[in-house]
């Protein structure tokens, strides 16, 4: 009873796609350099971790960075310390991005804390509060 119906269309069998004219695929770094052959070799520009980055987001949806924060990066034994030297604030993490993220969270927390107590801040924290307001704006 069962009747096998032939599909109306069948896919073509696999085939080797010919390389475009003038291009020859060779293993990385082993290519024989010829004028008509392009060899792709990936070499990172630098293996160094940057010593300084500009932070443009805090990772906290409650805040917007209106002026980039200069962050110094210091690799320690197993961690990276990201510091905002202007206000003596820091964050730590096992990588640059995690340290910057921790710093962002700390800065957001500091903003909320100083905002709540802005009428009873000592001279140094008043200076920190002014600097924070120059760089960060709470979202409405």
């Amino acid at each position, binding site marked *: 009873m069962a009747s096998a119906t032939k599909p109306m269309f069948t896919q073509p069998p696999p085939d080797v796609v010919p390389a475009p004219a003038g291009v020859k695929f060779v293993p990385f770094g082993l290519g024989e350099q010829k004028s008509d052959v392009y060899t792709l070799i990936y070499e990172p520009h630098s293996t160094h971790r940057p010593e300084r980055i500009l932070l443009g987001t805090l990772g906290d949806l409650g805040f917007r960075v209106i002026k980039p924060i200069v962050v110094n990066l210091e690799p320690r034994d197993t961690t990276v310390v990201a510091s905002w030297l202007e206000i*003596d604030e*820091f964050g*730590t993490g096992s990588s640059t991005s995690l340290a910057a993220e*921790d710093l962002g*969270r*700390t800065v957001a*927390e500091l903003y909320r*804390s100083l905002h709540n107590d802005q009428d009873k801040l000592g001279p140094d*924290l008043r200076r920190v509060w002014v600097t924070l307001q120059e760089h960060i704006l709470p979202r409405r």
Partner: protein
Amino acid sequence: MKTHEFERIVAKLQLKTRNAGDRLAWFEHDGQKVVRTKRSHGNKEQPGDKIRQQLKVNEQQLAGLIDCSVSLPDYIEILKSKGIIASPKKPAPQPQPAVPPQQKRR
């Protein structure tokens, strides 16, 4: 800096603390928030130099805070000397009542 060393400073300086993503700590004096610091949770090594900068002390003073050589009154004096704690204003001198010039006796 070890976690227990941080906690020793918290206890000695009677810092106010709050646990958020990190353990946050503030030093208050005369009703004012003066300095703040923090440490991450767990027993990880803390960046002592960063904590020292937040507490506004030098290496020797930090070591003194961890052991017994720098007390809470000493710390307050350190912050006063650096202008981190505002020194209490001296009362303005009272104006002297005008004294009439003495008349020469004849």
